[in-house]
């Protein structure tokens, strides 16, 4: 297994997206990280250690299998799930947390800081930091912490110091800003573990490289199972699992790649988190990318029932792939996502997160337009344990 990426360009640019829009104080830190990553990815020993950890510590490869009882109506394409919810800690975030912590260790750093929205990057980073004996600080928005209390407790059990952020939207965006400030003051000992392929170069490229294992596995599993899918569907928050899955299929023009964004309550007027489909070009959290901002460039608060989707910025690589037409976007409302998660749980015994529920709902609509001999692959990035409180409100007593 290699850790190369596709479609990345020099100087961290994907078309006109990307770059390093950071306080100058972070430039040497990013330069060191870039050099260390370039060096590590060529090192066979680093790759072996990483692959071993992905296998034994994260629990890869994760299964790919169908969910025949999920569909409300018969007759459409078959839907198969890529089950990254079955990793040991933090769903697919474990892939890049292991990679980045291993790299930090190699660079002689002894502490990590991360932000988390859905809690999964926090859990993954806290778990790996525990394993590597590194100090770990996790920033989470106050509203995300309140609706995912068990995740916060889990991070604490792994020894992480959890910082609840009351600023701004009290969600992922505020947590990212706070984690960045923390990192700026301590970059001599601490590295920032990005959950998503967002932020300044080399983060988008590096996170995508560590997440590419999802797509590579899926490709082999599809061949193994004799499946030739028509569409890959993934919900986009920061975009870690989306780019991880899609990266292995970018050069297969016969397959459609569908990025699903949170429509919030739904409708034109309500708050949402669809910055790839409805955002504007801007500069946010270190990169030129698609952002939700008003006409004056102020960042707009997002809304989604899935905390992991509720983020106003986006991966510069995904922004580029959407702009060039390789990736399509769709929107799914809170209610549709929730209904999909509940039905999957009832009919298949699989509890997925609300983020994945968006992809499931989108896939169901797409499947109806295809024939039963066709296949749609849906990314299941993490389990729904964190959303139990939100989900049980919906079940009639």
């Amino acid at each position: 297994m290699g850790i190369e990426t596709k479609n990345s360009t020099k100087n961290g640019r994907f078309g006109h997206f990307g770059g390093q829009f950071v306080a100058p104080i972070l430039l040497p830190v990013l330069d060191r990280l870039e050099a260390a990553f370039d060096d590590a990815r060529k090192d066979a020993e680093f790759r072996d250690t990483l692959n071993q950890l992905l296998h034994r510590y994260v629990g890869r490869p994760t299964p790919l299998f169908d969910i025949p009882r999920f569909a409300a109506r018969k007759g459409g394409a078959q839907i198969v799930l890529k089950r990254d919810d079955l990793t040991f800690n933090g769903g697919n975030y474990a892939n890049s947390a292991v990679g980045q912590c291993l790299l930090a260790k190699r660079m002689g750093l002894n502490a990590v800081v991360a932000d988390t929205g859905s809690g999964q990057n926090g859990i993954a980073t806290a778990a790996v930091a525990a394993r590597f004996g590194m100090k770990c600080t996790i920033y989470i928005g106050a509203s995300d912490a309140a609706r995912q209390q068990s995740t916060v407790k889990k991070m604490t059990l792994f020894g992480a110091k959890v910082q609840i952020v009351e600023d701004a939207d009290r969600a992922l965006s505020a947590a990212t800003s706070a984690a960045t400030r923390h990192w700026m003051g301590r970059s001599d000992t601490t590295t920032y573990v990005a959950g998503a392929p967002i932020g300044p170069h080399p983060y988008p490229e590096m996170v995508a490289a560590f997440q590419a294992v999802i797509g590579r596995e899926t490709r082999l599993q599809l061949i193994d199972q004799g499946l030739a899918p028509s569409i890959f569907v993934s919900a986009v928050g920061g975009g870690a699992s989306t780019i991880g899955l899609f990266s292995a299929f970018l050069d297969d023009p016969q397959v459609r790649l569908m990025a699903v964004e949170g429509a919030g309550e739904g409708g034109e007027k309500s708050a949402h988190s669809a910055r790839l489909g409805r955002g504007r070009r801007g500069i946010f959290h270190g990169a030129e990318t698609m952002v939700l901002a008003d006409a004056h460039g102020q960042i707009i608060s997002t809304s989604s029932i899935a905390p992991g989707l509720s983020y106003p910025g986006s991966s510069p690589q995904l922004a580029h792939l959407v702009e060039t037409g390789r990736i399509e976007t769709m929107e799914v409302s809170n209610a549709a996502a929730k209904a999909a998660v509940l039905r999957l749980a009832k009919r298949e015994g699989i509890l997925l997160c609300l983020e994945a529920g968006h992809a499931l709902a989108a896939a169901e609509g797409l499947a109806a337009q295809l024939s039963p001999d066709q296949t749609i692959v849906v990314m299941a990035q993490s389990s729904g344990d964190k959303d139990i409180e939100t989900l049980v409100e919906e079940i009639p007593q």
Partner: protein
Amino acid sequence: MTQSATTPKTRRIDSMFKRLKAEDKSAFVTYTVANDPTFEASLALMHKFVASGIDLIEIGHPFSDPILDGATIQKANIRGLASGGNLDRTLDLCAAFRQTDPVTPLVLMGYANPLAVMGYEHFAQRAAAAGVDGLIAGDFPLREAGDLLDALARSGIFMIPMAAPTLEAKDFTSEHPAVGGFLYCIPVVGPTGGPSASIEAIAAGVAECRKVSTLPVMVGFGVKTPQMAADVGQVADGVIVATALIDMFQGKLNGDDPQGSDYLDYVAAQINQFRMAIDK
């Protein structure tokens, strides 16, 4: 655009340093967020700054996500936004200030996204028309600023580079005609309003800047007291005090009239104390 557009406007910062050098003084700079708490209050405050000894004003254009700033300036941004502040209104404010003060240099300070959304060319032209002399953008390093620098050069506005002891010279020096004014030397790591560096570390940082640049060097971040400002003034060409003064002003304001003489007299007295310490 013709040569004439770049001549008079770029000179305000240069003439300030020339004047101060002749008087053997260091520059004293402060920062305020536009529209904190209102447009009119900002205008009154800026004139009061100048009247009580400020040489150059950094005027923050409010942004929803001031990532380089600590709690004090984050809150100031929130107040500025709440009263309708944005890049557009900040340029209006600069233009209003310029009507009665043609001399004091104004340096716009803020973040990249509002500039990107306004468009660099449009921004540069509007800023020049409003009498802005320079730009400091917290998340816009020189290595990314090609298009912005070209636009600024066409309008005769300086991009003020931020320098830090950990940076390589290439990240704060440039031959580009838009890069100039002064070097903003940041002797500490971390956001604004954080801990102070020792005067020895500051002197070393300034010396490093002078090795690779002929621009005047101003020191900001972590300068909190008149005594410290005086010490910094001994080693640098200028001192920037932001968070410490905003904290004092907020403490005094506390619901009072931000345009009232009680508050503005207090502002003048505080500025004066720093000014006297720096000039001693």
